[in-house]
Structure formats: structure tokens, C-alpha cells
């Protein structure tokens, strides 16, 4: 599983790299585009995702101490869905802005959509797996491995959040 996560990190790599490059060479455009992000929603989402990691961990703990992890797993799924819902709202409300942007700003939006989009796909897969676990919660289940994956998604977001929402605004 660690090997798999290593692959994932490098999969995101070029996107991060593209961002760093853009920020270095087109700082103004990146800053002004960043101002159009919904900071409040982004922050809310960060909180939601962090909480979901917490419930995921509680689920793992429950399964290790012979209690049913079901409740925690469903909560995790719910939080994941809430995240996607808010993200979806953000996407649609930013779309007109993004579509009309040009130059460096367009680049910012492009990276924003590509990176967070890829992240959202990962999250959707994560939600599917956790629901599957919750549906057939039996003992010898790969909860630990799934948990690793979930925390990985979470950590990616912890990087994305300041990158797109905060750095340009306050940096």
C-alpha cells in the first residue's frame, strides 16, 4: 500500500510542479485569480475532510477493539459526500469566471480544476470503497489499508487548500 501511495504522490507531482512554476513566473495573475476562490467554502471543506479522517480513524479503532465500525464508516462516507457537494457548488459558481479568464489566470483555473478534480475523483473512489466496507462490515476487512488511502486523500487536500485558497491571498 505504501508503494501504491508513492505512485500516487508522483501522479500528483506534475500538477504541483506546474503550480509552483506558475506562481514563480506569473505571481500577479495567480494572486488575482486566487482572490476569486471561495475561501469560506474552502475552509469549511477542509474542516469537513479533516473530520472525516478522524471518523475513519475511529472506525479503524472500533474494528480493532471488536466493536462494529459501521457507524463511523457511514459518517465518513457522509462527510465525504458533503465535501463533494460543496465542491460541486464551488465548481459551478466559479465556472463563468474561469471560462472567461485569460493568460496566467486561465492557467491558474486550469490547474485548479485539474488538481482538485483529480482529488475529487480520488475521493469519490474512496467513498465507494468505504461504503462497500460499511455495507459488509465483517471482521477481517481491509479497513486499515482503506484508512491509509483516505488519509492520503486528506493530506493531498491539506496541500491543495493553501495552494489555491490562501497563499496568493495572504502571501
Amino acid at each position, binding site marked *: 500500500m505504501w*508503494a*501504491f501511495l*508513492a*505512485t*500516487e504522490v*508522483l*501522479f*500528483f*507531482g*506534475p*500538477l504541483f*510542479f*506546474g503550480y509552483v*512554476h506558475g506562481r514563480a*513566473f*506569473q505571481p500577479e*495573475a495567480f494572486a488575482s485569480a486566487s482572490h476569486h476562490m471561495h475561501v469560506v467554502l474552502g475552509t469549511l471543506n477542509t474542516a469537513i475532510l479533516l473530520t472525516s479522517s478522524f471518523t475513519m480513524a475511529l472506525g479503524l479503532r472500533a474494528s480493532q477493539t471488536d466493536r462494529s465500525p459501521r457507524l463511523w464508516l457511514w459518517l465518513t462516507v457522509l462527510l465525504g459526500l458533503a465535501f463533494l457537494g460543496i465542491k460541486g457548488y464551488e465548481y459551478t459558481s466559479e465556472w463563468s469566471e474561469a471560462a472567461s479568464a485569460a*493568460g*496566467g489566470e*486561465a*492557467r491558474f483555473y*486550469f*490547474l485548479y480544476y*485539474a488538481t482538485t478534480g483529480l482529488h475529487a475523483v480520488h475521493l469519490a473512489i474512496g467513498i465507494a470503497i468505504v461504503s462497500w466496507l460499511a455495507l459488509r462490515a465483517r471482521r477481517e476487512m481491509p479497513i486499515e489499508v482503506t484508512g491509509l488511502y483516505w488519509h492520503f486523500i486528506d493530506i493531498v487536500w491539506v496541500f491543495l487548500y493553501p495552494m489555491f485558497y490562501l497563499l496568493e491571498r495572504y502571501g
Partner: protein
Amino acid sequence: MSYLTEGFTLRSWLTTRDHKRIAVLYMIAITAFFFVGGAAAALIRLELATPAGDLVSAETYNKLFTIHGVVMVWFFLIPSIPSVLGNFLVPIMIGARDMAFPRLNLASWYIYVLGGLFTLAALIAGGVDTGWTFYTPLSTQFAEGNVILVIVGVFIVGFSSILTGLNVIVTVHRLRAPGLTWFRLPLFIWAHYATALILLLATPVLAMTLTLVALERVFGIGIFDPALGGDPLLFQHLFWFYSHPAVYIMVLPAMGVASEIIPCFARRPVFGYRFMAYAILGIATIGFLVWGHHMFVSGQSMYAGMVFSMLSFLVAIPSAIKVFNWTATLYKGSIVFTAPMLYALGFVGLFMIGGLTGLYLASLALDVHLTDTYFVIAHFHYIMVGGSVMAYLGAIHFWWPKISGRLYPEMLARIAALTIFFGFNLTFFPQYLLGWLGMPRRYHEYPPEFQVLNLLSSAGAAVLAIGYLLPLCYLGWSIFYGKKAPPNPWGATGLEWQTASPPPQHNFEDPPRVTRAPYDYA
């Protein structure tokens, strides 16, 4: 009852989870691609036989070398040794019943085929003319043709590589036989382990980079295209961050093969086993740090160039250690020149020439003169064709009795090995000279003074083609008419020789125990 007789229907093959059958599926698929890539090469050499661009148009020529590069790199060489021989041998050599994830293993074959179909579709739809390197903005703005289709093909086949890598790593970690400690592993396993690490860490970068190229091409947003505010150097950095390690994906398994064949036919334990294992890891690590040597003339900073140049010299050290140790293994050995041994020795010699000329290219000032000339072409063909393809053929011969249960005709095989060696050198040595004299790569016509050397090269290509067709014929023949092979026809050490030829479905009748170091020849 061997793995070959477990079922004869097509269905039993296409749904198999036996790593040995999957290896055979891979062998068939990559052989097909080898001849697709070879056909393109034949047309290229035919065009270059005369100075005038008379056989094909410039556009067609561009498409030919693109498809040649794409097919040979991603659909033949990268999967060649790892997916065929690695798949077949890794579990057997470590005394396991199968790979760690047999279904995933089969899935990676299907993914490979799917990627291949996309690429072939692009070929049929009219080809691509970007070169295998997909440099931007050519690939995102100007190139004609089916860039997206090919990118999708390469993207997909990348996942096949990643899954194979994952499978090998977990297999080596988890499924070693009792007593088989890390430093009792055959070097073949070490090489595949390091290769798998590179597959896992480099391939996703390529996948995402190519995705960005495709998105840029579709949506016209500037990530790489300077006209849109992007940066083409960013593409080159990302591409070579994958592609230099990828050249080690292509050569490390070949080193593993040589380390099995040479001790066997010199009847001596491999010299400096631990150094060999560390050298493999060293190459894999430093290989990640030298990508900038492909960009000396791209406008990256001079200091970056100096650092990359120095690191490239550094990577030659573990490579040289390996060459010295193979040579030392031969010293005072009782050498038998069987066909696999001829291939292995050919590998060592040609790899050495390719590596040494790599140092020419890694020298900043010389590279300004040599970059984008036939010297570069000769350099990497010496390593990839002279080195890796030789080793692949050597491996196919060496383990053929194990895979097919039959012996191949030895005399014919030696003739083929020598034909290939001769044809190869005739094809590519003149290209060093051409590059040194300044003939640039990727043009379909050239000044008349280069004709003699080009003609030699084209003649060599014809010899090489015959050399490659020979094994196809006699190995095919031997499947039906060859003598039945005993379990250990070469008197080799290694767990794979302790089970029947061909092995039973789960490899061993009794799970083996390992009590000794590898290469116990004496």
C-alpha cells in the same frame, strides 16, 4: 502435468491467473509490436539509403520515426524483460507459487493490450509526427494528426507498467521461500526489484504530464505553450524526469539477465555479488537525478547544466562496476560459448560502448556539438538495442527450455546471435561517425557526402532484420519438433532449475528451502 497442459482452449489462456501463462501472453504481444516497430525502422533505413528524400515525404518520415520510437520504447522494450521473463521467473526464482496479485497481473496485460490498440488506431488513422518525446508546443499546437490518441495509448500502457511494478515489489517482499534472505537473492531479482521501484515512481509523472499535454491541446490553456503563457521547459523537465529513469527501466533487467547467464557459462560464482546488488540500487537512485543532461542546449541555466553533467558522470560509476565484475567473473572461468552466452557477452560489450559514448554526451561542451545528431541515435541504440534487446534474446534462449519444455537448435542459434551482433554494429557504428561529422537526426534527406556511411548503415539493418527473423523461425519450430528439455539443461544453479521443464502450475511439487548463497558454481 505442466502449466502448458493445464488447458488448451483460448479461454483458458485469456482468463488465466498463472504468472507463467501471462508471461507467454506478454511474449506474444510484445513480439507483434516488435515487428510493427521494426517495419517502421526498415522504411526509415530504406529512405536513408539515398541522400534525396525520394521514398517517403517529410511528413511521412516524421510519422515513421515517431511510431518507431513510441512502439519500441513503450510497447516493446519497457515491458520486454520485466513483463515476459520477470513475470515468468520472479515467482519461481524466489520459490513462490505465483505473483502476489495474480488477478492484477492479468489485468496489467489487458491494460497493455488496450493501450496498444489505441496506439495502433492512431497509426491507422494517419499517424503522429511529434517524435516519441512529444515536445511542446509542437505537440500541443502545431502537430498534425492523432496526438491525443497516442497520448491516451501511452497513458494507458503506463498503468500496466505501474501495476507490474507494484506486483513485483510486493511479491519480492512477501513471498520469498524460507531461507531466501535478501542477500541470497539472484541478481536478476535485485534488478527487477529496482526496476519495479522506478516503474512505480517515474511512470505516474509521465502519465500526468502527457495528460496535461492532451488537456492543453484540447482546451488551449497555457501550461507548456509559451504563446499562451506556459513554459516549454517545464514540459521537458517533467518528461525527462520520467524518461531518463525509464532508460534504466530498459537496461537494469538486462543487467539482471547478464548476471545469470555469465556465471552459468563461465562456471564461476558472480564476482562481487554484494557490489553488484548495491550497484543496481545506486543506478536506480542516481538515475533519478540526471534528467537535465537531455536539456543542455534547451536554455536551462549553465549551473544546472554543470550539476547534471557531474551527476551523469557519477551514474557511470556503478555501471562500470558492473562491467568490471562481469569481466572478473569470466576471468579463469571455463567458458562455454552457447547462444545465450554469446548474447550476454554481446550485451556487455555493446552496453559498454553505449555507456562510454554517454559520457561524451554528458560533457557539456561536446554535447553542444553532438546533440540532435546521429551520435545520440547511435548512443542510445547501442544501449537499448545492442544492450537490452541482446539481453532479451539471450534470456529467451537461456530460459526457453524452461518456458517451452523444448531445446532449441544450438548451432542455428549461435549463427543467429553472431548475425545479430554483426548486423547491429554495421547498422549503428557508422551512425557514430555520421553524428560526429554533423549529420542531424530526424531529417529524411541529407547531403550526398554522408551517403557511404548511411548506405553501410542501411545494409546493416537488412542483416539485422534477418538476424531477428531467425529466432522467430527456429524457436517456433522447436515448440513442435525440438528435443524435450530436462529440468536443468545448463547445469545452472537457481531455484527455477530445480523444478520440471516446463514447471507445474504452482511451480514446485514441494515448496523449496534455501540454504545457500546464489551462484554456487565451483
